[in-house]
């Protein structure tokens, strides 16, 4: 079965690569749609020189609201989150079920991706050093949004007759609204979310990742001029699609196992080297930090001033930690727990690790490099190439392991998103083997496509969809917020009274 799929896939891709101008055909066909759609989703209100997209405002307001409404759960719950991940509260009887640590690790490998390396560079280029400050703020607020999302994901998940689970925003939106007597609306937003997450999975969770991995690969093998691979996007794409396919269709767990094991180490390795690079520029550290704060408040040299820096910072943070999008709640709903709140508490570590730790470190690498070498940011490097250049200044061989790390991050993000998209797809078409395989075959085609086409308009459409599903998702969070608050208060009261105890582990 899978052989047929794979050979069919290869045939399709071969013919695609043979057809020159394929890029342009797609681009010209989709550009007007993308443009219109982007305009609608990213509708901007002009404030001074800056333009504030409404959807970003929607996310910020959501983050602020839930931080206050849940009584600063992002600070209060932090210590408890670490205790949960450590397994202090895990019942030994449940050994063999998904642990809090595993759910967190899987969700983190889904969010730690190209955005942490390349996205931050984009933020700093466009929004100045001050964007870093707002990036951290967004991470901080995102912790509260994630808490609400993931608690709901567990609370309203479906337990399938075969013992597996399906959860996520489409389920809590449908069931949550139905509970409140808005059954029709619940069905509508559930389905809408499912379509959005499916399209998002093909775009930012897939094509964007494979495309960036390819770009980085070409860079380290000699750049667009020299590299033999420069015009062989189709080859790289097919190889990538085959590897992804062998994991998600072929069920070759060993590849996934290896990646899932390597990714956390890569993240640690990346942070360690980043810290080394930052300290090699130790003279520049105070200035770099000062720039972050002054930039945040004055927005010097940024279009739209401080507000411009804020917008960019928040936008990039959402791309990176996915708080408000609801995707992580799909991964978190697999945990076996009688207390949905525990999963929400654990999930607040995600924006913390992803944004407050990893993104900030990347920003500092770039920040210290630009202080040590004025004009560094102006030489025209963009995205991941800029981060790579900042590392290269201090450690000449670093771009190669960095490219390797970027590819692995991209790969693990694709694996995670393939699942998010699958859950959207099966929500719409039912859980059957045929639908499952069909989705996965489509997903693999898009992996290959990502390396072949100029992303422009297609990616814009997918981006827009990912932001668009924030709208019903956060709306649902507002409606269901009181339920989460009640559960949270009851849970923490029981922890305090000693009704929920730590288990003695030998």
């Amino acid at each position: 079965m899978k052989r047929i799929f794979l050979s069919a896939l290869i045939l399709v891709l071969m013919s695609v690569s043979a057809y020159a101008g394929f890029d342009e055909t797609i681009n010209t066909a989709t550009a007007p749609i993308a443009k219109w759609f982007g305009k609608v989703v990213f509708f901007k209100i002009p404030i001074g020189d800056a333009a504030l997209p409404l959807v970003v405002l929607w996310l910020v307001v959501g983050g602020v609201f839930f931080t206050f409404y849940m009584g600063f759960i992002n600070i209060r719950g932090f210590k408890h989150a670490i205790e949960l991940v450590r397994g202090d509260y895990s019942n030994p009887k449940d050994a063999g079920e998904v642990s809090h640590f595993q759910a967190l690790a899987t969700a983190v490998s889904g969010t730690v991706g190209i955005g942490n390396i390349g996205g931050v560079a984009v933020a700093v280029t466009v929004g100045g050093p001050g964007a870093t400050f707002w990036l951290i703020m967004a991470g901080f607020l995102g912790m509260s949004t994630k808490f609400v999302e993931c608690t709901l994901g567990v609370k309203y998940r479906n337990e399938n007759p075969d013992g597996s689970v399906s959860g996520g925003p489409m389920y809590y939106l449908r069931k949550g609204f139905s509970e409140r007597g808005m059954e029709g609306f619940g069905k509508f937003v559930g389905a809408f979310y499912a379509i959005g997450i499916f399209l998002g999975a093909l775009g930012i969770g897939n094509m964007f990742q494979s495309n960036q991995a390819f770009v980085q690969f070409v860079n380290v093998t000699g750049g667009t001029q020299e590299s033999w691979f420069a015009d062989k996007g189709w080859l790289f794409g097919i190889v990538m699609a085959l590897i992804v396919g062998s994991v998600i269709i072929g069920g070759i767990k060993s590849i996934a196992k290896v990646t899932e094991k390597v990714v956390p180490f890569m993240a640690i390795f990346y942070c360690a080297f980043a810290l080394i690079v930052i300290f090699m520029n130790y003279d520049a550290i105070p200035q770099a930090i000062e720039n972050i704060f002054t930039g945040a408040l004055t927005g010097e040299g940024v279009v739209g001033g401080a507000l411009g820096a804020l917008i960019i910072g928040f936008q990039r943070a959402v791309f990176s930690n996915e708080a408000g999008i609801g995707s992580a709640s799909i991964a978190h709903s697999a945990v076996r727990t009688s207390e949905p709140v525990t999963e929400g508490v654990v999930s607040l570590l995600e924006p913390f690790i992803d944004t407050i730790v990893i993104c900030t470190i990347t920003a500092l690498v770039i920040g210290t490099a630009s202080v040590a070498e004025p004009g560094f940011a102006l030489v025209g490097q963009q995205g991941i190439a800029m981060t790579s250049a900042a590392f290269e200044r201090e450690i000449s061989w670093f771009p190669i392991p960095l490219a390797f790390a970027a590819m692995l991050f991209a790969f693990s993000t694709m694996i995670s998103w393939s699942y998010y998209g699958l859950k959207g797809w099966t929500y719409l078409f039912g859980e059957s083997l045929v639908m499952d395989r069909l989705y996965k075959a489509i997903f693999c085609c898009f992996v290959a496509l990502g390396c072949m086409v100029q992303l422009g308009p297609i990616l814009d459409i997918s981006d827009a969809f990912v932001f668009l599903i924030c709208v019903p998702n956060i709306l649902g969070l507002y409606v269901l917020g009181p339920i989460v608050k009640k559960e949270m208060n009851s849970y923490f009261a029981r922890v305090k009274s000693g009704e929920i105890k730590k288990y003695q582990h030998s």
Partner: protein
Amino acid sequence: MTTTFLVAVDGSEGSLRAASFAAERAKAGKAKIVLAYVIEWSPYSFHTPEELAERHKRREEEIERAHSRVLDPVFKSLKDKGVDVETVVHHGHPSETLAEIATNKGAAQIFIGRKGESRITALLFGSVAGTLVQTSPVPVTVVP
């Protein structure tokens, strides 16, 4: 109160020898036997989201298989010998989990079979019996 003996069973020849050895002791001393099978599992391993979603199902299957393939035959043969037997399946780190089961069941002794690994393999992969001897809360009998 009757004495309880814990026997670590993994389906290997050695573990079967340990079980029959323990059965003789149990009959002589009117003791009860707990047969334990540990499925190796770490809460810190990494999985894809799809594996996480299916984990509960898989866990049930693993436990089911441990009973039907490994424990049930031993259980039956000991029962036929007239010994009072009980079975336990648990996920976890093998030697640590065996020690925990021993404590929970109030076992007076643990019986475990030896695989007869060479020094190199024991060094590389560790030996459950070897580790258990060092960490067990109760006396351990290693059956060759």
